[in-house]
Structure formats: C-alpha cells, structure tokens
C-alpha cells in the first residue's frame, strides 16, 4: 500500500467536488433557488448594516467604511467553514440514526472522508459579496496596496477561517456525547454574528469571553486592527496565526476522538 500524502487527499477531494457540483447543477430549479436565496440573505444583511449606520455615523471611533471593512472581512473568513465543512450540520443525525458507521470502513482519514462528502456551493456567493465589500471599503479608506498588506490580509484571513472552522468542529463533535447537540452548534453559529463588530463595543466580560473562550474576536476584529490601526495592535494579535492552527488541531483531535469511540446503533 502506497503512502497517503497530501496529494492523494487533494486528488480525491477535487474528484468528489467536481462530481458533487455536477450533480447539484443537474437539479436546476434547486440550484437557482438556493443561489437566489444566498444573494438575498447577503443583501438583507448588508441593508440592516447600512440602516444602522444611517443613524450612527461611527461606533466607538470606527467609521462607516472601517466597519464595512470588518464586515467584508468576516464574510470572507466565514466562507471556508460554509463551503467545506457544511457536513458538520448533518453529523448529529448521522450519529443518532447510526448511519455514521458507514464512514468507518474506508482506509482513509475519517474526518476528511466525512467532510469531503459535502461542498456547499452557496458559500461562493458570500465570498463574492465579501470580496466586493472589502475592495470597496479598502479604496474608500485609502489603504495602500503593497505586497506586505496583501500578505497580512491573506495570513489573517486564513487564521480567522481556521478559528471559525475549529469552533464549528468542536461544537459539532459534541453530538458524539450529547444526544441533542443542535443547540450547541447553533450557538456557535450565532456567535459569528458578533464577529462583525469591534470587541471594544462590548463590556469587559464579553471582551474576555470573545478573546479567550469563544475566540470570535480573532475572526475579524483583531485582524482588522493589523490593517486599519497598525500602531494600536495588542501583542496577542500577532500570535493569532499560531492560535488559529492550534485551535484547529485541538478541534480535529476532539472530533476524531469522538468518532473513533463511536459504537453505532443496533441494526
């Protein structure tokens, strides 16, 4: 048996992806409706954001365009979790019904095999919105476009995505121990809404929670500081890429631990 490295997994992933998209496109009405739905969800989110700023010109020293930057940043960083790890939402029902056992018999990584099965194409609409918003606010704020800036933003986007993925993995994995884990997953999902605001607007208790316990401040706020307020960045921010990787690794381990002790149900 040959060694199974990154290339092996990438090859399989893209094959599944291509097939999945092909089969989704074949259900045309379904595809069009869900695409439209995604566009309207994003427009609605954007409109409520805009209305808010018509009443308040700035929030704690953050201008409209800076907030828009934060908003766009969070949309982009939420795309990978939406596109690539959407199967986490079904984990609970697979485990409950016993169907999860079917993932246990293949000679490949269980976590990979499970997550590879679903690619949520709707996330791409969100990505387009996010990029549009980010580029627009970037121009309006008049930020420079140097290679260093691009590098910074890419690194911090990846970091933010990893943290969001980690939160969702850990929340989904609770279903291996708790029968109705939907609320935990839903909670983790809802928290991401707070990621769009600077943590300075919250009380110090929540600031602590969002920084250390549910690290959603790392999803958009701290990374944005690096770009928008480079002189005013807490030291912790520079560590966030490492923290992101660490969080992802821990959540993966929790997920795998739960999956490997899974017994299945009677048949």
């Amino acid at each position, binding site marked *: *048996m*040959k060694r199974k490295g990154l290339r*092996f997994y990438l*090859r*399989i992933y893209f*094959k*599944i992806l291509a*097939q*999945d998209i092909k*089969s*989704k496109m074949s259900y045309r009405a379904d595809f069009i409706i869900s695409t439209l739905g995604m566009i309207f969800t994003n427009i609605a989110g954007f409109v409520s954001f805009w209305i808010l700023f018509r009443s308040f010109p700035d929030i704690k020293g953050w201008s409209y365009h800076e907030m828009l930057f934060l908003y766009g940043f969070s949309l982009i960083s939420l795309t990978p979790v939406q596109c690539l790890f959407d199967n986490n939402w079904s984990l609970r029902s697979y485990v409950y019904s*016993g*169907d999860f*056992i*079917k993932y*246990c*018999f*293949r*000679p*490949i990584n269980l976590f990979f095999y499970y997550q590879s*099965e679903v690619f949520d194409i709707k996330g791409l609409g969100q990505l387009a919105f996010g990029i549009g918003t980010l580029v627009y606010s970037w121009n309006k704020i008049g930020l420079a476009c140097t290679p260093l800036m691009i590098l910074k933003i890419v690194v911090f986007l990846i970091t933010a995505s990893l943290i969001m993925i980690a939160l969702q993995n850990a929340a989904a994995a609770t279903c291996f121990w708790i029968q109705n884990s939907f609320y935990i997953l839903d909670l983790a999902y809802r928290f991401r809404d707070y990621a769009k605001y600077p943590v300075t607007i919250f009380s110090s208790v929540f600031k602590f929670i969002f920084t250390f316990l549910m690290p959603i401040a790392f999803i958009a706020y701290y990374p944005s500081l690096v770009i928008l307020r480079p002189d005013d960045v807490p030291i912790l921010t520079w560590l966030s890429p490492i923290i992101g990787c660490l969080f992802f690794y821990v959540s993966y381990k929790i997920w795998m631990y739960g999956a490997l002790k*899974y*017994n*299945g149900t*009677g*048949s």
Partner: protein
Amino acid sequence: MKEIIRINHITKEFKVLNRREGLKGSIKDLFSRDYKIVRAVDDISMSIQQGEIVGYLGPNGAGKSTTIKMMTGVLEPTSGEILVDGNVPYKNRSKNAQNIGVVFGQRSQLWWALPLIESFRLLKDVYQIEDKQYNSIIELYKSLVDIEPLLHKPVRQMSLGQRTLSDILAAFLHDPKIVFLDEPTIGLDVSMKAKIRKLISALNKEKNTTVILTTHDMGDVDALCRRIVIIDKGKMLYDNDIEHLKSFFGSYRTLKIRVDGDLKAQSEVIQKEVPDFAVSADDEWISILVDEDKKKVMDVLNQIQSSHSIKDMKLEEISSEDVIRKIYEEGVE
C-alpha cells in the same frame, strides 16, 4: 487452506444506564446514575479459512452486529483477541479497511448523489486499485450481472434491490480478502434475492473471497453457506456444517396433512390430540413436527386418521429453518 480470521475468547461488555420509570424516575436518573454491565458477546472463539462462506446466525439482539463491528475494527473487544489477516482490527483500522469490504443491508455506503460508475472511480482512488485490476473486475461484473443500466444512475434514484446490488459490487471492488454482508437480502423481492445470492456465490468462487454473512433468511443460508455459526445472548451455540446440524435433528420429520374444514381451527384440535409435537397451519397444509424417537410418524398418522378424514399428506425432512428455530427456542443439547 489459509486461516484468515482468528478469534480467541472475545468478550464485549457495554455499560448501560438502568433507567427508572416515569418522570420522577427520569429526574432521579439525572442525579444518581445506576449502571449495569451488559455482556453483548460472551467468550466467543472461532477460526475462519480463506474462501469460506460462513452464515452467522442468531435471533435479534444476539450479538451478531457487535461481533462484526469488532472484526471490522469499529469496536474494541473488552477482552480476548481478534486477528484479521494478521492485523488487530481496532488498532490498525486503516490497514484492516484495505482488507475488508462491508455491506449493511439498508444503509448504502455509496455516494448518494453520484452515478454508480463515479462511485466506483472514487473507490478506485481511495483503495488505490491498479488500472489493470480495476478494468478486469469491471469486466467480471459485466459478465455476472447486467450493470450497464445501473452505471449511470445516481444511487439515490435506485430501487432498494439495485442499491444493494451496487453496494455488494462496491464492496468487492478492491478485491478484499473478506467481505462482511449484514442482512444483504432484507426487504428484497424473490427474484432480486436469487440474483444477489447468485452474485455472492459467483464472486466467492471467482475471487476466493471469504464471506461472513448474517441473515434471518434461511434461503440465503441454504443457497450460500456450508458452515454456520449460531450465537444467542452473546454465547456461541453452534459452529459446524449445516448438514451436521440437520443430523442432530435427524429424528425429526415434518408431517404435512390436509383435512376437511378450516385448517387453522383443525390444527388446534390436532394439537390437543398430539400434545408432544408442535402443530402449525398455513393456507395449504397442517404441519406436525414429529420426533420419531418418541413416536413413529405412521402412528401419529393413524391417530389423526381415527378422528379426521385426511385428504392428502406428505412427509418432509426437517428444513434448516426448522432446525434454526428449534435451536433459538431450545438450544443444542
């Protein structure tokens, strides 16, 4: 012949919560938990050779699935040891997965949205099957079953029969040494059952694949298995040839008769006349399972004839279904 599976005295225990009744009980359960240990598999040993088809039988809840899960590496035995082709399945799950194929009757393992041929191509990559081997097995499949109409159909549009067939083909694709089939013919019509049995038997012959089959359908057992293993309540009851099993019950014969009147009602009357033997009735016949050590069939027939007018009769050797039922109900003496 080469030994492929070795099981030495395995036991599997589960911790089960003793649930109290009612709402009050549930609230109590929240605070004080009272567990009991349930032994799902109790000291089972066996040895299976390469190329055998073994029928693994037992009533519902006997521990069959638990044993299979241990052999496939999903569960770790509480004690005892299992070797599947020299591997400890639980410790080396990925390597073990390369050696086995698994089919669960009603749970498809194929990609739901993909046409069968795409699933096959993905499995080819997942199991790293060589092109030559892949092509030759597809050729073999084409010669055994009519798969052309299935190949381009998404799995979710298939009938249960087609899906089971596809799952079995997928399980054999990487030429595994062992294939576990858990109730493969459950819920299928008669002709599909026959087709699937034929396919399993052909693949076993062609590839010399070991097949472990759990089923409740004695038709599967008669068509496929020479050796059967029976377990109940986690304990092994029987492990030998099916012919040997029948000789255990050699003194049993089934006497079938037809009399005037409603067969169901008449069978109850006859049951009272011959209280030693089990009497049952279907639409056509009244069946009496006679133990010839106790009473000769002719005597039973005479006895019944004295009070009923028998229109027709036939005598049958005990079927494997009857044998298994007797074992489930009474055990092997």
